[in-house]
């Protein structure tokens, strides 16, 4: 069985808050820039729509990256445990 790493709560808290706020900030930034460009060039609503898509895509990519990283870390911990069990 995998030992729970020390301060695992800190990593979980950081991941949870990071995901939620990065997604919100990414969508917010892209929408704002899209709105500003639309105002500047009179192209409403194209840049806002593009911004919304870009923001949502960034949020999904950020979640995917975090998930892959955590999966890799868990696999690394499992491998260490298996190695230790073999040595014992």
């Amino acid at each position: 069985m995998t030992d729970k790493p020390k301060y695992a709560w800190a990593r979980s808290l950081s991941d949870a808050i990071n995901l939620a706020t990065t997604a919100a900030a990414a969508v917010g930034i892209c929408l704002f820039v899209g709105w500003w460009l639309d105002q500047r060039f009179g192209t409403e609503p194209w840049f806002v729509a593009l911004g919304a898509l870009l923001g949502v895509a960034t949020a999904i990519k950020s979640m995917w990256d975090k998930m892959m990283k955590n999966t890799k870390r868990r696999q690394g911990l499992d491998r260490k445990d298996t190695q230790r069990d073999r040595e014992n």
Partner: protein
Amino acid sequence: MLFGMWDGVYFHLGPIPVDHLVVTEWAIIALVGIISFMATRKMQLVPTGLQNGFEAIILFTYDFFTQLMDEEHVAKKWAPLLTSFFLFILISNYSGLIPGAAHVQGFQPPTSNWNVTMTLAIITFFSVHIAGFSEHGGHYLHHFVSPSPLMLPLNLVEEVAHPLSLTVRLFGNIFGEEMVLAFLLFLAPFIVPTAIMGLSMLLGAIQAVVFTLLSASYIGAAAGKGH
């Protein structure tokens, strides 16, 4: 007045106006500096008193950040900055909890102003990239086009989203809490705001922990083996 906060300027340093928030920040920096100086003034092999407490804090932070950032040398390099963030934000958040402080010029928490939180977030932003370049050199730039050059816009938006989320979260929480306290003090000056002040103690600590954790997580990610 901006959002109900007093924005008076005490004096000017050349062209730069120095307002009450800047003075409060200086006072907080001086407080942390004086306590640190007193703790490290007469260092002994067998620590006692304040030195003992500080050594315990430093050992804890090294261990904590090593677990969070995966790499011990990265954690040891950045722990002083991150611990300073934590102490500064914690004391700033609590500086508004002195009873009646919301009505006294110079006692509003600096973190209830977005200029302060944005400055802290910008320091984190540059620290992340300095950590990335110092660990990976020019190869660090590769992560902007990883896993494909098509991802460049998404990676750039993500890099900008991090400091923005750090800024808005800390500012929003502390500013909101200060406004609730100010309204309650106005409506019922005694006893009623005490419960919110108790909650603010918890909130102030949580926000300081969250800002530090996220900064550590971003620096750890930039300096880690994943890049």
